[in-house]
């Protein structure tokens, strides 16, 4: 342990997390839109965007599940120091982080209850690339249609069928972030 995990947080947490949140809110409100979030330098293999999302949204009140290759001692130390979120298994996660194939199966995450559909997990998916091309998106937040390079199609269609229950997805790649809430219809 070299203490490297002490670095890489926001240098000015209140304004940098406010700016990062606005970008995250923008992409959640407008599925298909890609924004940049800056300011975080988490340890490998996390992308700067995933680090910024964690710093902006997670704290001791949110449980985080680290899936597969992102569950490293460096990442654990960084989260413990900067965020303080308890690390849990997928069934109890408020946020889950990992590569798409390592986050599977989606059935293991909480999708909320009919009375409280907000008590569902948000998955932060680390992507090799992120473009406004590929799958067609329709729904709230989208004028006509939008496109996003989703890692798959069928799981998102199945997720949307649970509406108003379901999982919400934030996609991260380098500095860039995009999102797919459960309300979006994918084809």
């Amino acid at each position, binding site marked *: 342990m070299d203490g490297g995990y002490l670095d890489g947080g926001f240098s000015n947490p209140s304004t940098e997390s*406010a*700016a990062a949140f606005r970008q995250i809110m923008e992409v959640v409100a407008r599925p298909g839109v890609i924004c940049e979030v800056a300011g975080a330098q988490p340890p490998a293999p996390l992308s700067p965007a995933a680090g910024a999302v964690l710093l902006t*949204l997670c704290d*001791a009140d949110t449980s985080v599940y680290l899936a597969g290759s992102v569950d490293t001692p460096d990442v654990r130390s960084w989260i413990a120091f900067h965020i303080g979120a308890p690390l849990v298994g997928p069934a109890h996660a408020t946020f889950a982080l990992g590569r798409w194939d390592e986050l599977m199966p989606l059935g293991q995450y909480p999708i909320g209850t009919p009375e409280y559909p907000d008590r*569902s997990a948000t998955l932060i998916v680390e992507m090799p690339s992120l473009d406004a091309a590929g799958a067609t998106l329709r729904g*709230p937040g989208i004028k006509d249609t939008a496109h996003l390079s989703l890692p798959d199609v069928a799981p998102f269609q199945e997720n949307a069928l649970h509406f108003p229950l379901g999982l919400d997805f934030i996609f991260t790649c380098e500095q860039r972030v995009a999102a797919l*809430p459960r309300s979006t219809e994918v084809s």
Partner: protein
Amino acid sequence: MSEYNFAYLDEQTKRMIRRAILKGLAVPGYQVPFASREMPMPYGWGTGGVQVSAAVLTPDDTFKVIDQGADDTTNAVSIRAFFERTAEVATTTSTEDATVIQTRHRIPEVSLQEGQILVYQVPIPEPLRFLEPRETETRKMHALEDYGLMHVKLYEDIARHGHIATSYAYPVKIEGRYVMDPSPIPKFDNPKMSDNPAIQLFGAGREQRIYALPPYTQVVSLDFEDHPFEASKPDQCCSLCQSTTSYLDEVIVDDSGKRMYVCSDTDYCAARVRKQAA
């Protein structure tokens, strides 16, 4: 700005509110519970709206506050000054120049644009509350999409008055799923909520609820085939700017009951008056 954290609230509170906003956007029209904080103003003065604004504001924003359409009432002036002091944001009264607009009971007359955020102050977020006082029951009704009672209420309006007499806080249905209280905006403003390019956020401080509408969300005012929804306003024109299309306030101007009608949106009215003078 050494006295307060940026935008007054502490970071953990803002994160909690931000998570609620994101879930609200993911399930449009659903009321997300949040741990509302005491604010340095009484309940009923926009504590919910203020907390939502505090969670979304960045130092680069230009902030506008309206109270019943007016930029110059006590509530609007105080909240604007609050964020000038605690967030050091630029403020404006112009709807076009604002990036974040906090509103009490009106939607501006000028169409909102992509990139703008409209934050509503909400007193009672639960549209079914006056029909069913128990939270456990209304929550179940939302879960089961059981909104028959709301139609009974509108029907009773018709039975008693001959038309749907509800004129503000007129219930709407979001994307065919959740029935939502649009906050006490006049029903004249209801059609502006639908397909709006701006993000619309709703904060109820005392009731501890946040809900949201992403841009371009379908918002339908409840009605009947034989009694369709009508966005009504006084059938008059503004005494100051002669607008016939804006929402009007009726103002009593002397002891003998003389009255005048003026635009409730002061920025819209003032801009028209300036244009006519030029």
